[in-house]
Structure formats: structure tokens, C-alpha cells
């Protein structure tokens, strides 16, 4: 059998048992990357030498009993907006084309402590702004199910790398659906945890109040295991939350008897692809058959989520991205006259069009005279959306719906109409606005053979509910490997 078909936890067991060495697993992943990158282009940086050296080191630590965890020795791919000491971290932007951080993001450090071997950095929409991974300055990533289609975004590289079986698992980040939507498009599983669960220290910010780091993998077991490893209370992140219920793997139980699941009617209306709708309702049926109590309800305010999200995320981004100015690091224009000309040219040449669009939008909504009408209103909307979810979670343990209205669009289709692209985030952004945990997992293929993602949403700090429901559902299916993975 091919090593890369294994899940992260399966590989971890084999390494522990001495059936596979860390170097063999790492070499296999690097070979897979070499064979598939031309078709998929999931990576922006591949660290072959570093990975092999690290593999040797980790093997020793496993042999001497220092590393015993389930992820020890398992090779991983990291989204390129997570700082990795000594390794290029570009956010898939020209403006950070040469940026090598002096420190490693806390979540990645946590993985290293668990014995991870970093293969490289995955492609993404520039600064995580986009839903297709087409806004990357370093070329588009293709969907391993059909390379004429996008992998989704912004964590498209991470999800494609997992689906193409170039790595055993990956880290992504999710500001408005950037883990769940590409997971859905690529037929893999991804979790966006409750805001504050995973430290954001070292995550290059897009929308600080919405960003969360999360796992992408082949199945729910992997995701729960990885999430358990990366979760930590971090004093360096003031929004980090001290939690005690982080034994997420304890929720890997095939039992949903009596679990109350609500399906927002608002999520099944206009704009939802009929094939996606059928698959989602079938998944709900499956859970019902396993003993869950499933009903439809009105969530309300759904139409306000996208405008509120784009105002808040863009506002924060316009400020977060101000530091990229050509002064301290990254791209500086070649010729300029004076400071302001240097700023202007460096930023004009360094940022791509989607990033510029959001910086301009964000600057506009924060301008004096517009602040109340846009930004403040968006904050109020955010609070109301949270209230709507609070109300729903008084009744339901889990909210079920699609991760995206359609399956993966064709390359080049989305960027011509950004507003339409933004509307594709309708089912994911409110989860970020309300700070909730969400999971996306495969629930079938459409008639074009493209994966459909089922999204389960939990109340704050109730990851275990969605992990349990997702795990139970997953037991009724077998993992489908993408065509590229089977090459």
C-alpha cells in the first residue's frame, strides 16, 4: 500500500510500532510532492533538507522515548501565513517575498513539541483574502479532484496538499471560512475552533478578531488529534482563552442518540446548488437514523453576515497590513524619491488587486464620517448574529448545513466577479463573526465528481459536540481518495 494513503494517526501508530521510520515517511511525502506539484501546486516552499534532518532528529526522540504522542514523526504542511523560524513565510504575497521570521508561531511550536516534521509551506490566497487560492502571487493551486477547478481558499494549498496526499495533514487558518470551504471543495476534513482556542501568536493577521488556526486532514480522528496538539493557553496572545475541556479526542464516539441537530432553513434557500442540498439533507437523514433529533429552524440575520463580515475583516486588514511598507522587511521598490513615494510604490507593486481592494474598503469604512454608518453598524450586526446563534444553541447541540453553496468552481471564474465570490462565503462567515467552532467534512460527490462538504457548527467551546456528530456520520462512509492521490 502507499504510505501517503494513511491518516496522520495511522502513520503515527506505525512509526511507534517501528513498522515505518520517520525518514521513510518524510521521504515518501517529499517524493509525492515532487511527483504531484506540477499538477497541483499546493506548496510555495518545500524544505527537503530541513525535513529530512528533522526526521532523523525526531526518530531519535521517538527511539529514546522522549516523543510518545500520536503525531510524533508525522510529516505536516503549514499554511504560509504561519511564521516558521528560519523558513520563508510569504502569505503568498510579493510584499513578503523574502521574509524569514525570527520566531515560530505558537501553534506550529506546539506541533513541533508533538514531534511534527515540517515539509514546507502551502499556497494560499494572498494574505488569506480570497476563496479560491487564485489571488496568490505565486501561482494558482489546483483541485486534486479536477485540476480545472479551484481548491477553494484561502487555505487552498493546505487542503489540496492533504487531498493530493502530498502530506499527512496540514494547518490552515480560517477568518471567514478559509479552512472549511476549501476542505469542502477538496473532499477533506477541517476544523475552525472556537475563537481563542489556538494561539494566534505568529499567525500573520488578516482579521484579528476573526482569525483562528485549525487542522486539515483526511478524517475527524486526525482533526481532533491535531486540534488537541495545537490548542494551548498562550500568554503572548491576549485573546487566548484558558480551557480545560481540550481532550477533543474523547469526543470520537460513534453515538449521536438524543443529540439535537438544527438545520437553518435560511441555509437551504436561494443560491444553494440542488445537488449540494440533496447531499446535505441526506447527511442529516443519516444522523437522524443514528438517533439524532433533527429539525429545521429559522436562524435569521443570515443575509447580514456577509456585509458585516466584509466590513469588519477589511477594516482590521487595512490596519493589520499597514506594517508592510518597505521599511523593515519584505519588498521595497527599486527606485523612489523620498519616503512617501517609497511607501506608495512598494505597496502598489507588492500587493495584489484583491488585497488592495480590501485595504481600500477597510480604510473607507473606518474613515471619519463613515465609521458609524459602516464599521459600528457591522459591529452591532456581529453582536446580533451572535445572539441569534445563542438562541439557536439553547435548543440545539449542533447546527448542520452546507459549507459552501456550490462545489468547486472552475479556475478563473470567480475573480472576475468578486461580489459573487464573496457571496460564496454565506454559510461560513457567521461562524467567525460569532466566534463559534465549525467543522467541514466530505458528504459525497456531485455529478461532476467534485466533493461536497457538510458543515457542523457548535456553540462556543463545544467542539466536542461537532466532533462527535462528525465522527458518527463519518462511520457511515469510507474515505474517498482524490484522483491525483491515486496517481
Amino acid at each position, binding site marked *: 500500500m502507499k504510505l501517503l494513503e494513511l491518516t496522520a494517526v495511522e502513520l503515527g501508530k506505525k512509526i511507534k510500532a517501528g513498522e515505518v521510520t520517520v525518514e521513510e515517511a518524510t521521504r515518501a511525502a517529499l517524493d509525492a510532492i515532487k511527483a504531484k506539484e506540477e499538477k497541483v501546486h499546493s506548496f510555495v516552499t518545500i524544505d527537503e533538507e530541513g525535513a529530512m534532518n528533522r526526521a532523523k532528529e525526531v526518530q531519535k526522540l521517538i527511539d529514546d522515548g522522549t516523543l510518545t504522542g500520536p503525531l510524533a514523526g508525522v510529516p505536516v504542511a503549514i499554511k504560509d501565513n504561519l511564521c516558521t523560524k528560519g523558513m520563508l513565510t510569504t502569505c503568498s504575497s510579493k510584499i513578503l517575498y523574502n521574509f524569514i521570521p525570527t520566531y515560530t508561531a505558537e501553534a506550529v511550536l506546539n506541533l513541533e513539541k508533538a514531534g511534527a516534521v515540517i515539509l514546507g509551506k502551502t499556497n494560499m490566497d494572498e494574505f488569506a483574502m480570497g476563496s479560491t487560492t487564485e489571488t496568490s502571487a505565486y501561482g494558482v493551486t489546483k483541485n486534486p479532484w479536477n485540476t480545472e477547478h479551484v481548491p477553494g481558499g484561502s487555505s487552498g494549498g493546505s487542503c489540496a496538499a492533504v487531498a493530493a496526499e502530498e502530506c499527512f495533514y496540514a494547518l490552515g487558518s480560517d477568518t471567514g471560512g478559509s479552512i472549511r470551504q476549501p476542505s469542502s471543495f477538496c473532499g477533506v476534513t477541517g476544523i475552525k475552533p472556537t475563537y481563542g482556542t489556538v494561539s494566534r*501568536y505568529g499567525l500573520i493577521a488578516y482579521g484579528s*478578531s476573526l482569525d483562528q488556526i485549525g487542522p486539515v486532514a483526511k478524517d475527524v480522528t486526525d482533526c481532533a488529534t491535531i486540534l488537541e496538539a495545537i490548542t494551548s493557553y498562550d500568554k503572548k496572545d*491576549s485573546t487566548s482563552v484558558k480551557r480545560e475541556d481540550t481532550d477533543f479526542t474523547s469526543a470520537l464516539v460513534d453515538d449521536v442518540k438524543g443529540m439535537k441537530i438544527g438545520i437553518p432553513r435560511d441555509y437551504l434557500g436561494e443560491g444553494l446548488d440542488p445537488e449540494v442540498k440533496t447531499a446535505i439533507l441526506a447527511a442529516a437523514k443519516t444522523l437522524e437514523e443514528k438517533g439524532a433529533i433533527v429539525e429545521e429552524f429559522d436562524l435569521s440575520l443570515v443575509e447580514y453576515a456577509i456585509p458585516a463580515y466584509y466590513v469588519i475583516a477589511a477594516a482590521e486588514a487595512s490596519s493589520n497590513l499597514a506594517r508592510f511598507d518597505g521599511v523593515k522587511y519584505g519588498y521595497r521598490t527599486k527606485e523612489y524619491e523620498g519616503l512617501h513615494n517609497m511607501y506608495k510604490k512598494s505597496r502598489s507593486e507588492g500587493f495584489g488587486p484583491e488585497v488592495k481592494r480590501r485595504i481600500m474598503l477597510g480604510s473607507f469604512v473606518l*474613515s*471619519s464620517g463613515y*465609521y458609524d454608518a459602516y464599521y459600528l453598524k457591522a459591529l452591532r450586526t456581529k453582536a446580533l448574529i451572535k445572539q441569534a446563534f445563542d438562541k439557536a444553541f439553547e435548543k440545539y447541540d449542533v447546527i448542520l448545513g452546507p459549507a459552501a453553496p456550490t462545489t468547486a468552481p472552475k479556475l478563473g471564474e470567480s475573480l472576475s466577479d468578486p461580489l459573487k465570490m464573496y457571496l460564496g462565503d454565506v454559510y461560513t462567515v457567521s461562524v467567525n463573526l460569532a466566534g463559534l467552532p465549525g467543522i467541514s467534512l466530505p458528504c459525497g460527490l456531485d455529478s461532476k465528481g467534485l466533493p461536497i462538504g457538510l458543515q457542523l457548527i457548535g456553540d462556543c467551546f463545544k467542539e466536542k459536540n461537532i466532533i462527535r456528530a462528525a465522527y458518527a456520520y463519518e462511520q457511515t462512509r469510507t474515505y474517498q481518495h482524490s484522483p491525483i492521490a491515486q496517481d
Partner: protein
Amino acid sequence: MSKQYETVIGLEVHVELATKTKIFCSCSTAFGSAPNTHTCPVCTGMPGSLPVLNKQVVEYAMAVGVATNCQINQYSKFDRKNYFYPDNPQNYQISQLYLPICHDGGIEIETENGKKTIGIHEIHMEEDAGKLVHDDWEEVSLVDYNRSGVPLIEIVSEPDMRSAEEVIAYLDKLRMIIQYLGASDCKMQEGSMRADVNLSVREVGAKEFGTRTEMKNIGSFKAIARAIEAETARQIDLIESGEKVVQETRRWNDEQGYSYAMRSKEDAQDYRYFPEPDLVPIVISDEWLQQVKDNQPELRDEKLKRYQEEFGLPEYDAQILTSVKKLADVFEATTELCKKPKKVSNWLMGETMRLLKEHDMDPEDIKFSPINLAKVIELTEAGTINSSVAKDVFEKVFSEDIDPDKYVEEKGLKTVNDEGALRETIEKIIQDNPQSVEDYRNGKEKAIGFLVGQTMKAMKGKANPGMVNKILKELL
């Protein structure tokens, strides 16, 4: 000038807080280190870094708020102020706009025209920027981020001041309060206290304020006074000649004695403030606030009163001793040891001040231990050393903080009270100085001074001067 005008002034005072570490990271705030040695990913704006609030900053800000009679916002927030400049590594400054930590306070000042309360609109916390060094030779600018992230509070007054004298009195009072709290050393020359002056003029009796200008970062009290006089005159001239005062920011050039426009309201920046998403709101519990209130030290006005009542010092002494906290601290510690407040006051106001001046030092630079000053006083009071020896001993205490008991012993400086030995010396002096003896006997009273001096010299200054006088007169 036919019309009468009044000047309306409000101040924005920035004070660097005396914390050991920066406001949002654990880098040192120490002055004078090599460029960019007190830096980390946070205070250099590296991608992915996040701020964490230094609790001591909140505590100092609260203490200043309490001492200036402000309301404390027990729920306050940080906001981002967005503007591009290379000394500002993130291109935004973390400050407080919407919910500052303190608001609606005020302090009482006293000028020749009597007492008056100056309102404080708000006090907010923020981070300092780095420093730009322009290298004209190389035609480059360099940035030093050692100051980036040093904690500041900005104290915004109401437009309640009407003259340079009131402004100076307000600044002086503010400085004193903050120094007493230990929240900052408030040294204007070193930039740990900086003031922006908002000034307008209007006809006496007018209800509306005139158009104001802002003068930024003036370096000393004297310069502030000069800038106020000049700006007042400039605005009155404009009005008198039928022109309009333009709302603008001006830079005061103290050497040349004039100000020039930096930027007008039209090109004023839109800072696009919004709540800082990387920090959680600051929640101050009732207990914490009470604790800060309970820990407030005695401030100057209270000390001033107590020194007169408890120690019976003249107001003049109390004024000087309390003018600098260090002086008051030394006074209290020394008095506690020797229980002679007036003597301690005399030593501090006399010899200590003289030596400070001689060495070009500030009272803050006093190094000697109160116990050693107390010993000098005790030695003098007991007659163990005479006053001129005491001054010499104190000079040693002042510069090297020596132990006076040991020093007097080792150097053999004890006053000689042995009458026989004294009489012997004086007899010899009389013999050696017949001219002075003659002069004295002929009624020249002053001549005895010379003979006393000669005796002291012969006794190496250790003689008891009273006894010398008595024996001399007897023998003459």
C-alpha cells in the same frame, strides 16, 4: 490696541511611565543603550506578533487619575490610531480614544492671582514611537526602536488656562504629583514629559472660543512660556489686522523665538481609529481600584501642611523640602533617625543645596544615606565636632556617603575640649602675634577674629570655638 484680549490655553501632556518594561512586550525601557538592542518582534512590528498589556501601566495610569481627581473607567479599551511613519513600526499606534482609563478630573493651581482649578478632560494610555536618526552625510535615515513601545500617558486638560503663568503652575503641579507617585521622573529635557499647547485668543467677555493653534513638543517650561507669549501676540496681530487665525499645528523654534506652520486642518490626517482587536478590554475591579487608592502616597500639598504642623517647620522650609520628592524623602528619613527636623531642614536647604549647585546636580541625584546625615547632626549637637568640621565631614558624606563616626575617629577630628592644652596654644599665639594683640587692646575688636583663626589653624580646626573665645579674652 483698543480691544482687550484673553488667551485660552489647553494642554496635552505626554508622560513616559517609569515601568521597567514596555507597555506591550517585556523589552527594557532603559535609556541610552545601543540602537535596537531593547527590541523584540512585538515592538518592531514583526508580522504575526501580538501585544500583551503591562499591568503596571494600568496601575500608574489609575494612580495618576486618582491623584488628579479623575473618574476611573473600570471598563476601558485600547484603539488603533492609524498613520504611516517609519518610527511607528506597525504604522498604527495603540492608544485609547473611545474609552480612556480616566476622565473628568482636575487639579488646583496657585498663582499670583490666587487659587484656581484646571480641569482634566481625560487621561489615556498609549505607546511611544521609535526614534529616527537622519544621517545627512550618507543621505539615509535610520530607525532606533528602543523607545518604541515605551508606555505613555497623555493628560488632556480642559481649555481652562489663561496665561503662561497658569500653564507653568499647572505643569509644575502635574509634574510634582506624578513624581510623588513614582509614576515618572517627568524630566522635560530628557523627554519623559512633553507638552503640546493648544492656544486661542478672544476678546475679553466673549462667549465663544477663538480658532486655536497647536504647538507640539515644546522642550522646557521656559520655552513654553515664551511660545505662549509669542503665539498670543501673533494671533492678536492677525485679528487686529483683520486676518483670520488658521487652525493648524505649529512648530515653536525657541532659539529664533518664533513659530511656523507645520500642517493645517485641511491636510490633517484621518487616523481611522477603531478598537484594537488584539487586546481585550481592561476591566478594573472595585478591589483593584480600592487597592490603588489605598496605596496612594502622601502628595505634596499634604506634606506641605504636615511639615509645618508636625515638625514645626517654617512654610519656607516646607516649600523647598517638598518641592522635590527626593528631598522630602531624605528629610523624613533623616528626621525619623535624629528627631531634629529643623536641623535636618537646615542641612538640606543649606549645605546640601550648595553642594548640589556646586556639582551641577539635581536633588534627585542625592546619593548619601539619611543615617549618615543624622550622624553628622548628632556629632555636632553633642559638641563632638564643631560646625566647621561638621561641614567638612558632611562634604565627605555628600560625595562618598562615608560613615561620619568612623571618619571623625580615624581622622582625629573631635573637638578639643581640654582647657589646659588650649590655653597653652593660645598663649603661644598671643606671643607670636604682638601686632594683633596690640590692635585689640587699642579697641580694634576685629583683631580678635584673626587670633581665633590662628588658634583654630594651630588646632587644625578641632578646637571648641566658644572656649577659644573665652580663653583669648581672658588672656588679653
